[in-house]
């Protein structure tokens, strides 16, 4: 497949860019932050997303979705990255929809996917338990009790965790932390007895929560996929999330970069635009190269998820590692090149820095993915 967007994908990008630029620019994020919005996102905006079909972008058409691919989901993520728009798109439309569509029974799909498509359900995976991403070290227990399971443990960094209606929880039904066998995915009603959610919004004003599970009863009917064999499904879901966040980082990094280049052209010191100084020109040119090289890897990762889902691991790690690093370079250079004004809360560039820091960490940082690639290549 050619490494360029096709006509339909380009149209989707243009539409998304037009819509978000008009309806959810950075002022939208600021307004949510400044009024300490209880949801952390705009339900009215999410309704618009639902009407455009975005909530069901990855949901197969037979369940009412658009049935589009990961490239298309990535196109939307990239535009959300440009405007730093908070929304349940990542948690619900990308991660939860993927998990249910790939591992659910027909009944589960009919029930949950149709609700996601209709905008009636916010759903999110609950994976991490420690400050660094180590899904195989999952310790939360799922103990069998008759025809159900009891969940005990704690999750952290759960996106939209305090507003989600449905949690997709990875827990250990066998084995010990570190084993990839013995993990099971559960579809858990977020209002179930024994679940406590503490909202912990992150530095970028996006949603996250810590969840504790105490004797939470889950029916065996709510197992997603097979008992003890949840690892492969989880890896697939995480790969989709990693590629999606990488696309978002491409958007955020490029937007920060283009604002910086514009500033280099207009800001004058010593009687001339600072963009005339070679010290800054070379750094800007280098950054341009890094972002372009990253874009290639991210597009390839998204295409690979569409073409050969089970073989996407290596390229997804390449994309996520690169996206985290080059977007980080972009925002660091952006603040430095903007000088004092880049340090002010009033100016937008710092908001990019905050979001990129979170994106770098989500589903494994560059070191995690370098290690993963080294393991895949056996060294």
């Amino acid at each position, binding site marked *: 497949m050619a490494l360029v967007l096709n006509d339909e994908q380009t149209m989707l990008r243009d539409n998304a860019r037009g819509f978000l630029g008009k309806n959810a620019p950075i002022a939208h994020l600021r307004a949510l932050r400044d009024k300490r919005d209880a949801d952390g996102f705009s339900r009215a905006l999410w309704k618009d997303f639902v009407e455009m079909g975005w909530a069901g972008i990855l949901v197969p058409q037979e369940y009412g979705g658009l049935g589009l691919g990961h490239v298309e989901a990535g196109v939307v993520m990239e535009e959300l990255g440009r405007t730093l728009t908070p929304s349940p798109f990542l948690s619900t439309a990308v991660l939860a929809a993927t998990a249910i569509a790939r591992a659910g029974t027909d009944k589960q799909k009919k029930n949950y996917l149709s609700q996601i498509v209709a905008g009636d359900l916010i759903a999110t995976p609950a994976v991490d338990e420690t400050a660094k991403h180590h899904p195989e070290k999952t310790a939360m227990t799922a103990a069998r009790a008759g025809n159900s399971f009891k969940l005990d443990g704690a999750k952290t960094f759960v996106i939209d965790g305090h507003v989600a209606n449905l949690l997709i929880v990875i827990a250990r039904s066998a084995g010990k932390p570190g084993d990839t066998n013995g993990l099971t995915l559960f579809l858990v009603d977020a209002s179930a007895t024994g679940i406590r959610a503490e909202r912990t919004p992150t530095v970028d004003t996006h949603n996250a929560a810590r969840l504790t599970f105490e004797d939470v009863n889950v029916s065996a009917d709510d197992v997603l996929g097979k008992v003890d064999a949840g690892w492969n499904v989880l890896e697939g879901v995480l790969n989709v999330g990693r590629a999606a966040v990488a696309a978002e980082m491409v958007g955020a990094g490029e937007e920060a970069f283009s604002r910086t280049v514009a500033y280099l052209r207009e800001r004058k010191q010593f009687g001339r635009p600072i963009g005339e100084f070679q010290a800054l020109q070379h750094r800007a040119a280098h950054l341009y190269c890094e972002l372009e090289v990253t874009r290639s890897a991210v597009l390839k990762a998204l295409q690979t998820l569409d073409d050969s889902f089970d073989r996407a691991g290596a390229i997804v790690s390449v994309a996520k590692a690169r996206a985290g690093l080059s977007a980080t370079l972009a925002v660091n250079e952006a603040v430095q090149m903007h000088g004092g004004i880049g340090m002010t809360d009033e100016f937008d560039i710092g908001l990019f820095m905050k979001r990129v820091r979170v994106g770098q960490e989500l589903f494994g940082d560059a070191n995690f993915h370098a290690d993963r*690639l080294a393991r895949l290549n056996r060294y």
Partner: protein
Amino acid sequence: MDNLETFRKETRAWLEANCPAEMRRPVQGEEDACWGGRHPVFQSDAQRLWLERMAEKGWTVPEWAREYGGGGLTRDEAKILRQEMRALGCRPPLTSFGISMLGPALLKYGSEEQKREHLPKITRGEIRWCQGYSEPGAGSDLASLQARAEDKGDQFLVNGSKIWTTYANKADWIFCLVRTDPSAPKHEGISFVLFDMESAGVSTKPITLISGASPFCETFFDDVLVPKANLVGKLNKGWDVAKYLLTHERDMIGGMGSTGDSRSLGQIASETVGTDNGMLADTALRGQIAAYEIDALAFRLTMERVGDMAKVGQAHPAVSSLLKYYGTELNKRRMELLMSAGGSDALEWEGERSREGRTARAWLRSKGNSIEGGTSEIQLNIIAKRILSLPGA
């Protein structure tokens, strides 16, 4: 689609029948390249045969028109040919600056006579070309070049000298930048001419590099007569041709960097530093190698993406500066990692085990990649000016 699948089948069958077994072994180094020329040096009969067969098909330059000796293949067919050659491990039949640099410039700027005269000989490997660009006083500031071509009626009289002329001592012809109007601003008085290296007054002197090899020469022109018919493009407009050709040179250098060792960095390092639970015992080196491999894969995909963008008219004309800058810096990083992974083995300069210091020599050679064809700093200048539109660049 059916036609392409038929083409693929036929191509594979032809390659299997015609590519000698010796020409399917991995290239070990620069000495395995076949350069052709008036006085060709073939390593083996197989190498000669492989060149002859491929040239006969026009597949030394598959995308050039048949009338110029090419294969007349479409982009998609040429891609299939490359894929099938890779699948069978076929070596390139011919390495040639005529193909990679002069050809594209002649196709764009040359007269019909020039194309018919020179392109077929390039495709058959009959004439080996070299590039006369840099001068002792004109490196990064190439446009300040001083070699002069005076108007002598039907001919130019060329005097001056060039430096870093790759394989000038082995080349048959040169494509050369000369100053034809000393009074004009520096970019506007340059012309692009072609001449025979056997012309009276041409001499060359190889330069020994830190790697011990001598791929470059000093080249001297002392009252060399060049027919005016050998001017490419318009008089005093050679800078346009030069810039166009440089983008092709940059693409080529950006994609360079084989040491002939098919093992991955991780494998090489596993043998020298050892492993611990299947992971490299030197964890810092392991991290550096993984970081390199991430960037290297992303860069390969970028070359592919730039090609795909070019097909649909989306590639920026200055994108070759990105490829040249990034590719050469990446290659230097790889060579440093190979030296680190190789330890003292990689330091051996002589001896059979190191194959006469192959790693050390390749490492030293790589340092020139970010200098030749426009330094990394020049590429960054070009990106700042032409792609980012930064002021005063």
